């Protein structure tokens, strides 16, 4: 009984906070400059200090205030693990003083991590600035030129993953089943540098950059000359076929490199594969605000975010930091796509469990 009363009180208190923040912001005469002046905005990152997402967040934090009405101060807060950060954002008051830069849309974790207490489709999206280009690479010693040649092949593809529940590992396991490609997963690499070393050492022969792939654009910086001299070569395009892969600093995408989805004959399998690929690759760095953040506040963020990305000096440095071209996608588009991703996940989640089992078998 007491617990129920306490919970009711807490709910009323929370509702009051939402109402207060919301009412202030939804006022027809909402003055964003006045509202944000002198405030500190907490920019959450679900990774430790020093990683790619953290440094991007620090770059944004140092510059966003110039374009935001009222010129508030932005302060980066690291919260690990990633799911804890997503939980915290979801539960934050919708007063516009807490936002998050995520490393992925966080859709999969919502369903697979038991401790996830958020619904990402309810979050408000400010936008994203990373182009998508997820590519499968093969090392020079691997006999097949492209994935097309590996279909029904005999040579075993060896790739490094951490766990079978990694979405990318699940996706590759499904490909292996459907296209009859022998695959073996090695539990090893902890990041891009380790993965590249695995290739050189011969532990693996094919590399799929984890999460939303940025390696297509980043590889010429990390390993200059590798793509040009054929040390690694693009082996397949993981993206949905409607995503065009632009040239990087060294090469254009060779014409014979297939979109994976085009190799899948069964329309239902193809649909599932594209759905999961969208979940993993479509967006990586997204700025989000808590659910129910009022429209005027979101608009202030979206407008200033777009203006910031148009600042050439800022964008040039961001491009160097992220290793990818800056490509703005407005928040309303991201919001719509994420809702679709969640629907897709719910529709295919039983299927994904089977894929996880397939991945488990390959470890």
């Amino acid at each position, binding site marked *: 009984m007491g617990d129920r009363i*306490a919970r009711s*009180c807490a709910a009323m208190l929370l509702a009051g906070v939402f109402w207060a923040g919301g009412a202030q912001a939804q006022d027809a005469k909402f003055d964003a400059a006045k509202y944000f002046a002198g405030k*500190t905005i*907490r*920019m959450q990152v679900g990774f*430790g*200090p*020093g*990683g*790619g997402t*953290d*440094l991007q967040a*620090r*770059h944004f934090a*140092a510059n966003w205030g110039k374009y935001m009405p009222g010129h508030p101060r932005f*302060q*980066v*807060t*690291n*919260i*690990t*693990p990633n*799911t*804890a950060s997503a939980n*915290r954002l979801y539960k934050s008051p919708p007063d516009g003083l807490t936002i998050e830069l995520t490393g992925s849309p966080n859709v999969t974790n919502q369903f697979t*991590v*038991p*401790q996830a207490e958020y619904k990402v489709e309810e979050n408000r999206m400010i936008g994203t600035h990373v182009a998508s280009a997820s590519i499968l690479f093969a090392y020079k010693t691997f006999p097949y030129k492209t994935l097309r040649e590996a279909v029904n092949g005999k040579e075993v593809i*060896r790739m490094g993953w*951490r*766990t*079978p*529940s990694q979405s990318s590992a699940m996706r590759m396991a499904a490909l292996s089943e459907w296209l009859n490609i022998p695959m*073996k*997963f*090695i*539990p*090893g690499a902890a990041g891009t*540098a*380790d993965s*590249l*070393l695995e290739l*050189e*050492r011969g*532990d*693996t022969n094919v590399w799929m950059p984890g999460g939303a792939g940025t390696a297509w654009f980043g590889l010429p*910086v*990390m*390993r*200059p000359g590798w793509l040009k001299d054929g040390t690694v070569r693009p082996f397949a395009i993981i993206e949905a076929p409607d995503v065009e892969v632009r040239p990087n600093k060294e090469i254009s995408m060779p014409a014979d490199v297939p979109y994976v989805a085009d190799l899948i004959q069964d329309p239902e399998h193809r649909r599932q594969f594209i759905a999961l690929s969208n979940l993993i690759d479509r967006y990586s760095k997204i700025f989000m605000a808590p659910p129910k953040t009022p429209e005027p506040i979101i608009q202030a963020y979206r407008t200033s975010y777009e203006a910031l990305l148009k600042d050439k000096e800022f964008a040039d*440095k961001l491009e*160097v*930091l992220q*290793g990818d071209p800056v490509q703005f996608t407005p928040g309303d588009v991201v919001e719509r796509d994420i809702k679709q991703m969640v629907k897709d996940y719910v529709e295919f989640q039983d299927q994904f469990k089977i894929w996880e089992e397939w991945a*488990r078998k390959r*470890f």
Partner: protein
Amino acid sequence: MLDTILAGLGHLATFSYWGALLTGVFVAALIGLLPGVGTPMIMAIAIPFILFTIDDPLIGIVLLATIGGVSSSLDTVPTILLGYPSAATQVTFLEGHQLAERGKAAHTLGATYAAAGLGGIVGAIALVLVIPIIRPFILNFGYSEIAAMAIFGIAMVSVLSSGAMAKGITAGMIGLLLSAVGIHWGTGTERFTFGDLNLSDGLPMIAMTLGIFALPEVFDLTATGKPVSSKGVAMVSNKEVVEGAKAGFKRWKITVRHSLLGVFLGMVPGIGGAVIDWLSYAVGVALSKDKKQFGRGSLDGVIFAESAQNSKEGGQAIPTLAFGVPGGLSWVFILYAMLAYNIAPGPQMLDRHADITIMIAVSFGIANLIMVAIGLCMTAQLAKLTTIPYIGIAAVILPISFLSAFQSGDGWFGILILLVFAPVGLLMKAYRWPRAPLILGFILGGVIEKNLQSAISAHGAISFITRPITLTLIVITVATTILLMRSNRSTAEALQDDEDLAAAKAHASLSLRERLLAPWRGEHWFTLGLMAVAVYGILGSSSYAPSARFLPIATCSIVLALMSFQLLFGRGRRTGKIMDIGLRSALVPEAVRNGIKLAVAMAIYLLAIGTIGLMWGSILFAICMPLAMMKGRSAVITSIVGGIIVFGMSYGLLDYYMGVYWPEPYLGEWIEKIFK
């Protein structure tokens, strides 16, 4: 390449280079001197500033590398003077702090600077010499070699367990078991996480080492009610510091030997600073003729650790620059800065970017020399800290420990880990259990398990025999273990005094019946507690996938076997001297009274952070504790200085710069509800 190198060296004549170098050294010195301030935290704050304000890549990278590269030079100061070890200075604490207690703080620190400085220079030279030839070695040093190397590290547990072999091995096994906490690579099995998200990434090392090592020392020293050194200020002089440095330089042969070991260990992925000092120390002890000196305050022991600890930075730079695989946490930041400046690691670091490679090495050398000079200049003053009552130091160090632990985990989690492991560390001290094997097992356990699994998965179990480097390492490990076992008896005997030896002899003469009927003491309950953990480990992991349950079941079985034997037949046996510091306050008559006072102060502190929050509770504790527990003007001065330090760390660094989410005060919420 020569032109590029000369162009790099040309920076030595520029103001911007010296500005960057001196700034880096200054920041690194602050990191080392202030307990609880971690290098990664400062580098994370510095990196955007560097990337966006310094256009010359060489200057930006040198600044960042200097911060990361020499920040461990002065962390010996709080360790030796205040008995407050960090994860990377546990050996220095074991040997160096005992020397400080005997009034040799200044002398020890002088020697430490010499060893650290020489170590840093050896690391820098090794970096330049090794990079051109390292590529084939790294390409042949894969998962099986790393696993074999870590197993070699585990073999060193036997050295560190001298004097209490069964306890040491058990502690090592418990460390291995603790390394299993979190998500298992390859199967995704959540092991011992109790559904807690924070545990899915494993136990936070900072909070755990603070709990096992630092906090028990602070409690123990506070309970003695005395300063660290009872010898007075007479021994604290510049002359003493210089004498210490001379003593350090005189031991240049062992410094170079252990620096080279540090370079090698630094190159091996996963073997971080928290174990390099122990491994270097263990090798040093094994190779020493006079083993009696160790574990009770040995300058050689400090030099083994410090030379390796400082030279490892050069070693860690090698895989970072040659392959883009960061050798340590600091190098993750440096690598990121390099990529952001469009500088790719790899062969071009000896060609197009040879200027950067050479200047990192040169800067390491210069920065280490500057650090030695800084240390020599200020130690005489700092060493006076050992002569003030420890309670004043505890008033600052205790809240800083809590703030550090909090920062290592989300919310209350880090503090909870600290509160769980501090009593364990205290009991281990009280019952003479060596703590080093536990840390060694904890850190190397993950390295062994993951790499074994990856090696078997990638190349099959046969690779342990077919790969030449792996096979060599395995042979070395087996041979070393046999040799260590042989020499271990003499080490154990050397550690004991006559009384210990007599007690051991008396126990050996007991009949089986007498041994079985020996009385139960507190330490046996502690042993029983560990056995209960082992039983839980076996039962809890029985449902895991086979590869996920192997480590917990194997380690727990060894713990059960050893401890059952110990409880049944070794109960009457007294543990003599071990490679650790026992409970000093046990010999002080007023320790109980001081302990009760400290317990009350801690209870009030926990109450304060539970009501007004961690930040303000910590500041209040640093201000009030000296006023309540000290007398006279020193109480007021300690209160003001302590308050400023804790305020600076909690508000200035954590709140303003790091923007941390302070944990909600648990009691505050309840009180709020009651009044509403």
